[in-house]
């Protein structure tokens, strides 16, 4: 009951504020939305708590959804450790973001009920996703977060850039969703059901099933796993599909926090963990997951080092951290991956919201080159941002150090070639993460101020309604790793997860995390500190150094600055040709070729009749003669055919 309330209270809030917003007024609509979220944030963690205290996991059936022949899915809420952990995190973080938004959106000229309705709806969609008992309901939430991200990224719909970013987010996600949907169809084809309770026990029996594709046969489990992972790549912005995520910051900052921390992007990682009973039977797909995850972790980190927009840096950092989570999932350490998901939710929400606080203070300035020395003006924001970055960089004992080190160790412990590749990538990324995080801190809060006078004059610390959520999140960013470590990947982790995550090779990989050599355990910290020191040298000791380096390493710098030219590549190779093709198909295909036939026939008919008219001379003799010929021909045919 608590659990259902946690899921549906945000929906109620969204409906009341969204549909009645204009009637009951902005204040009441905001109140309704926040009330719904507060109820959820009480019920969600409580439901999780009950589970840790020995409550029975189960399924809450809400009724039948789709039925067609043998095909059958229900609306149902799954109550197990994995879902409950996610519900607790989503409701809690989302509630804080709601509260923060009261302050952040305070100056926005538009009516605010719409914004709060979207936020609550977003949370609801994510909750439906994580509590789904079957893949179709998961897809409902999956597409629901897609819709809400579209609505929220495009919230300031009078800005062309926001509209473009919103459409881009939706369509890039959709591109990945199609293989995902086909994957579901394949699961139904092979398993005869899309419900977890039917699929999971049957995976082992289908281990040797094959599916013909590209003229050869593959293990059908592998094909399914690949298709599902492509869906996850879209939602979680992995290499190739990552292009929507940085643009998503066109939305108001609380939205970025919600998308990057609690909802949406974590869906792909959650899917891997949820489908672990199936993924574990697909070693090649898992290798691919690790490869993509590790590559994304490093790739996004390189971009993060060269960006000047404060939100963009954090956006690429999200991309990179998601890569970590996939790398862990790929080597079978789903527990570590969900662990990082949860700790990341705290410190990434914290980072985004404090970036919002900076932007709020600086009259909507986002360019770090026009900041500097702000710590005197906004000390609390500066403090929480330090905490967030310390957690992100994995400095002990903050949250990130537990989960991130566990992932790096797990990739090493996996012992496979792809695992070592991931190990190297994630280590390098850890170094870059620390570097760009402190680059951000130094450029924003320290050194000499480069801000213009007007902005500085108006600069002010954010109101308490914004700072309080930041402080709460700081507590999470500091303590979450320490508090959850024992549960998530401690000695008794299997008892905690209670079968909601499946580890094919027993508990080896999680136990192996603690048994890696000392240098593996120390390396991330050493590299992180090195990254911080280099940032310190470059941006505090010798601020001219970055400029010189950008000149010396021109091509590499431009590559990073321009995000490896992915957007340009897609634009030239996909978008523009498709737009040209669509015009050709319309104007040549439809208008000229296809319509040419009937229009041509029509002309032929009218031309033909004009010619035939000429035969009508009016001379009886000609008519009679023609008739005679006709009769002769007819008789001839008649005689011949007999």
């Amino acid at each position, binding site marked *: 009951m608590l659990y259902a309330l946690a899921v549906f209270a945000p929906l109620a809030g969204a409906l009341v504020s969204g549909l009645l917003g204009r009637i009951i007024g902005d204040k009441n609509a905001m109140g309704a939305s926040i009330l719904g979220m507060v109820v959820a944030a009480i019920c969600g963690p409580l439901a999780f708590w009950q589970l840790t205290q020995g409550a029975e996991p189960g399924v809450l059936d809400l009724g039948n959804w789709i039925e067609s022949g043998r095909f059958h899915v229900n609306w149902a809420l799954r109550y197990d450790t994995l879902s409950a952990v996610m519900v607790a995190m989503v409701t809690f973080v989302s509630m804080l973001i709601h509260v923060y938004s009261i302050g952040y959106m305070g100056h926005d000229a538009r009516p605010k009920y719409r914004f709060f309705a979207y936020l609550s709806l977003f949370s609801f969609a994510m909750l439906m996703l994580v509590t789904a008992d079957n893949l179709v309901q998961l897809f409902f939430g999956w597409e629901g977060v897609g819709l809400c991200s579209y609505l929220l990224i495009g919230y300031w719909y009078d800005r062309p850039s926001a*509209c473009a970013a919103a459409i881009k987010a939706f369509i890039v996600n959709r591109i990945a969703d199609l293989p995902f949907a086909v994957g579901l169809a394949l699961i139904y084809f092979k398993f005869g059901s899309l419900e977890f309770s039917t699929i999971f026990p049957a995976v082992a029996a289908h281990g040797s099933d094959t599916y013909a594709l590209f003229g050869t046969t593959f293990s059908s489990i592998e094909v399914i796993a690949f298709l599902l992972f492509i869906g996850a790549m879209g939602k979680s912005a992995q290499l190739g599909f990552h292009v929507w995520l940085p643009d998503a910051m066109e939305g108001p900052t609380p939205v970025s926090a919600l998308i990057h921390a609690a909802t949406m992007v974590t869906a792909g990682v959650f899917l891997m963990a949820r489908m672990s009973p199936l993924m574990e039977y697909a070693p090649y797909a898992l290798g691919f997951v690790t490869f993509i995850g590790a590559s994304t972790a490093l790739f996004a980190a390189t971009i993060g080092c060269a960006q000047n927009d404060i939100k963009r840096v954090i956006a690429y950092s999200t991309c990179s951290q998601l890569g970590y989570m996939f790398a862990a999932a790929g080597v079978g350490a789903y527990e570590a991956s969900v662990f990082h998901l949860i700790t990341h939710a705290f410190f990434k929400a914290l980072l985004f919201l404090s970036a919002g606080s900076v932007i709020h203070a600086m009259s909507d300035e986002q360019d770090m080159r026009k900041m500097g020395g702000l710590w005197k003006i906004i000390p609390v924001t500066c403090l929480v941002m330090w905490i967030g970055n310390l957690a992100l960089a994995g400095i002990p004992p903050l949250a990130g150090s537990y989960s991130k080190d566990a992932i790096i160790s797990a990739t090493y412990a996996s012992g496979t070639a792809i695992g070592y590749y991931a190990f190297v990538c994630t280590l390098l990324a850890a170094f870059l993460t620390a570097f760009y995080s402190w680059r951000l801190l130094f450029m924003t809060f320290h050194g000499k101020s480069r801000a213009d006078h007007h902005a500085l004059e108006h600069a002010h610390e954010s109101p308490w309604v914004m700072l309080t959520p930041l402080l709460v999140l700081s507590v999470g960013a500091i303590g979450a790793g320490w508090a959850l470590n024992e549960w998530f990947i401690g000695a008794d982790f299997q008892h905690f997860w209670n079968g909601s995550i499946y580890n094919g090779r027993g508990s080896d990989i999680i136990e192996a995390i603690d048994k890696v050599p000392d240098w593996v355990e120390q390396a991330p910290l050493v590299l992180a500190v090195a990254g911080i020191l280099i940032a310190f040298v470059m941006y505090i000791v010798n601020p001219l150094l970055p400029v010189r380096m950008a000149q010396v390493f021109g091509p590499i710098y431009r590559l990073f600055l321009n995000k490896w030219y992915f957007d340009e590549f897609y634009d030239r190779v996909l978008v523009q040709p498709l737009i040209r093709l669509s015009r050709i198909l319309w104007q040549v295909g439809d208008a000229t070729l296809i319509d040419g036939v009937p229009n041509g026939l029509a002309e032929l008919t009218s031309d033909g009749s004009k010619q035939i008219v000429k035969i009508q001379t009016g001379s009886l003799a000609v008519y009679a003669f023609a008739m005679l010929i006709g009769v002769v021909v007819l008789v001839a045919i008649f005689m011949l055919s007999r």
Partner: protein
Amino acid sequence: MPALTNIAGFPILSLITWLPLVGALVIATMLRGDEETVATNARWAALWTSLLVLVLSLVLWVSFDQSDPGFQFNESVIWMPEFKVGYKMGVDGISVLFVLLSTLLTPICILSAWDAIKVKVREFMMSFLILETMMVGMFCATDFVLFYMFFEGVLIPMYLIIGIWGGPRRVYAAVKFFLYTLAGSVLMLLALIAMWVQAGTTDIATLMQTAFSPHMQTWLFLAFFASFAVKVPMWPVHTWLPDAHVEAPTAGSVILAGVLLKMGAYGFLRFSVPMLPDASTYFAPFIFAISVVAVIYTSLVALAQEDMKKLIAYSSVAHMGVVTIGIFTFNVQGISGALFQMLSHGIVASSLFLVVGVVYDRIHTREIARYGGLGDRMPGYALVFMLFMMASVGLPGTAGFIGEFLVIIGSLQVNFWLALLGGMGMILGAAYMLYLYRRIIFGRITHADLRGILDLSTREWVVFAPLIALTLWMGIYPSSFTSYFDATVGAMVQHHTAALAATTKLAGIVH
């Protein structure tokens, strides 16, 4: 056997079919008073007639036996005994919901044309009621000759609606529409005669049990295909549709997208698949190929459109491509998905045409570039538009998702690439719809005449309310609808498999 009785105790199907015609005749007698009075009376008479028909069809909805896969509410009168042609009516799981769709959309159309149609209101309302008779009759007919008459009869009022109350190029569009659809019909008539010669009857239920030789099936299939493919419309005979939509008045577009586009697919389901199982199986790959082309090609063309109605017309072709894929998968999910997609498209595409109509009534242009920034002035409109856009895109929780998803499930059982390519509409559909929405609703208002534009009126809300409710209902609890055709589709798939097996067996004996 008493001719006109059934479990409802009275000939409900005939009543639903012919009542609109009676209404039209009543309106025809309304001549008294000045033009304005006549118009008002005609509007109200048409509305009440169509509402009465709607209520009657709800009786049908309630008393329909969902577990019976065959025809129900049968009515049978001997009509042309020497040819064994009867006046036979009946509905099964496949047709009953389309009767409801027709009777629901008619009052909505009449209401939407309330102020938009200003000339010859009386004739317009009459045309619409006659159209309703033809549509409902077509879905109810269980005799081929009767079906054929209604099937062709639909053309006439629609031709008039486009040709008289349409836009500037209405005559071109109307003639194109008429000729395209008529050309196919002639071939269907030939097929009809051939079947009658073979089976000695035109009773659809009997024809479904008649085994035509595979060779004959091939020719019959092609004849039917010529007729139905144009009606669907399938690529490449789809170009009449954008023209017809663009020129038709809003109400005409609504009924065209909502019901008339379903006639072709309904024909495939009623005739081709059950009566010609071997030929259907033989031609399925061909149908898949042109359907996939339709999905991708017309979606891309939709992306390039500058006229709102044309864009939605092209999107209709793409959506109907998904329907034809589903039908020819010959499995329960595929066919159910196709049926559901037909119903949901009937609601959603009609709603989208109404959505276009709303701004067209205010600004009198369908050019996309003439809009922009309406979100500020018309928040209610933006919400309604958003809902139907998402339904069109196939967002789970709306009507559009169920059909598309079931078709993907059904088509994967046939072929992986069919599922993937047929599903391309998921991506391209999102592209052209979001792009459209952006150009109309988002952005800043730049055109002066948009500054004073008004949000939805009460009448418009009344028009949209049932459609919104249905779109969500169909998305959240589709079982209320799938349960109607589950039994029939199941029986159909079984019949198809059995027929194929019988042919194979027969071939084995022959060789």
